[in-house]
């Protein structure tokens, strides 16, 4: 190996990290604020919408008041975190990752995750769709909700149309949130990382190889080789 610019010691110089920070504190607080508000919306909305639940819960005025205020509050954690300077840096970076799809993401989506050669980044396309759908739900529900709350400011048919949209998006959102919780419960490391922030390096290598390589400079196939040195 004499004469090469690559010192042979570098192959084993950096041990693979045991943990990688997946979500910083700001992102975790944001997630759980969103979760509480979203579940409040679904809970109170169900109590307003499903006859059997309306009957069980009653107190229509109170339930409606909670629903309206939680709904108005819902966009604020997202907006404030996005604008929170360095506290929102990790969130803005992850929002960008969630927004954008790599070629591997598209192939993963087409093959429904069955293509073993697909190597994903920090988030898989399902998580990306969930994030975009949630933002869409907040936008549409806020708009239709405001039309329903202040019915006299708009043409009459808008109110019926807004109620129609609000009802169907509620149904879709309930299903997607249930799916999100199911997926989280089935992947304990992923769920735990939304509480404590980090994932084990081994988890990242398997589920997010490109993110692992980008963060550590190591190859995700476990050989511990500096990928920089390889080039």
């Amino acid at each position, binding site marked *: 190996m004499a004469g090469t610019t690559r010192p042979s010691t570098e192959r084993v110089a950096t041990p693979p*990290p*045991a*943990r*990688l*920070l997946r979500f*910083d504190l700001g992102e975790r607080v944001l997630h759980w604020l969103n979760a509480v508000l979203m579940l409040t919306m679904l809970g109170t909305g169900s109590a307003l919408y*499903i*006859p059997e639940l*309306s*009957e069980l819960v*009653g*107190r229509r005025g109170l339930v409606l008041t909670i629903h309206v205020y939680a709904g108005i509050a819902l966009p604020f954690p997202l907006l404030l975190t996005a604008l929170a300077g360095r506290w929102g840096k990790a969130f803005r*970076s992850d929002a960008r*990752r*969630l*927004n*954008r*799809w*790599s*070629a591997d*993401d*598209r192939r993963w989506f087409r093959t429904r995750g069955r293509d073993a050669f697909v*190597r*994903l*980044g920090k988030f898989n396309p399902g998580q*990306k*769709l969930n994030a*975009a*759908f949630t*933002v*869409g*739900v907040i*936008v*549409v529900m806020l*708009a*239709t909700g405001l039309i329903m709350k202040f019915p*006299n400011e708009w043409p*009459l*048919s*808008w*109110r*019926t*149309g807004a*109620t*129609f*949209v609000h009802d*169907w*998006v*509620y*149904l879709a959102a309930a299903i997607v949130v249930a799916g999100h919780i199911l997926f989280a419960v089935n992947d304990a490391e992923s769920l735990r990382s939304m509480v404590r922030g*980090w994932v084990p390096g081994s988890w990242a290598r398997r589920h997010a190889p*490109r993110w692992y*390589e*980008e963060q*550590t400079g190591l*190859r995700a196939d476990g050989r511990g080789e500096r*990928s*920089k040195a*390889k*080039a």
Partner: protein
Amino acid sequence: MTTVEHSEGQDTPPTIPPEQDERRGTPVGRRVVLGMAGLGVLGILVGRRVQNWISDVMAPIQAADPTGLTQLLPAAGGFRFYTITGSFPSKSAVDYRLTISGLVDKPVTLTLDDLKAMPATSMVKDFQCVTGWRVSSVHWTGVQLGYLLDLAGVQPAGKALKFHSFDEADTESLTLEQARRSDVIVAYEMLGAPVTRDHGGPVRLYVAPMYGYKSLKWLDGIEVTSSVIPGYWENNGYDVDGWIGGSNGRDDTPVD
């Protein structure tokens, strides 16, 4: 143990080609959000027509659905149950009493059997809610309100009615003229059967030409007053004279 912090863009190994970098890919997420927003706007604009169409399609399906699950589909029609108190109030057919009081010659207290013994009025008419939903062709049976008023004898000073509910919160009002219409009844049958508790049974008001909030549920008191006293929903912003298609800024087709 070491924890690697975020270090965006610095340590990108050259092995990640740009088309595989998830920070530089196609903005699919943005398209999803914009697409949903666009569909939302479209839904607001044409939702009413789509909803009517779905109701028409679903009606025969619901009629044949013993589980009632199809009722839960949005815009599929059917009643929505509103109560303004903590629970649905309950009173058995035996315990039920209806009192007629206020500016009357002789206050009356009636049992459910008393009401059923009186001349009955039946009609098949829609129930239209001020929030937009409508249940078509509901079968109603009851006693005309005007008949009950004559029974108690309204004094000359009496100009309006105040209705009380045994949920002890809801109230409603009608003018005497409105109350004496033939399509305003104290109903003990609805949907071809005794009025259920959820629908406001055993006895509720049905004011056919007006929005549903005027058809007070769990009726147990009729009070003749000297002027109109706005009820619960009117105090929350709805019109006192709740004519279908002629109030609350709405243009629904009136119930014929």
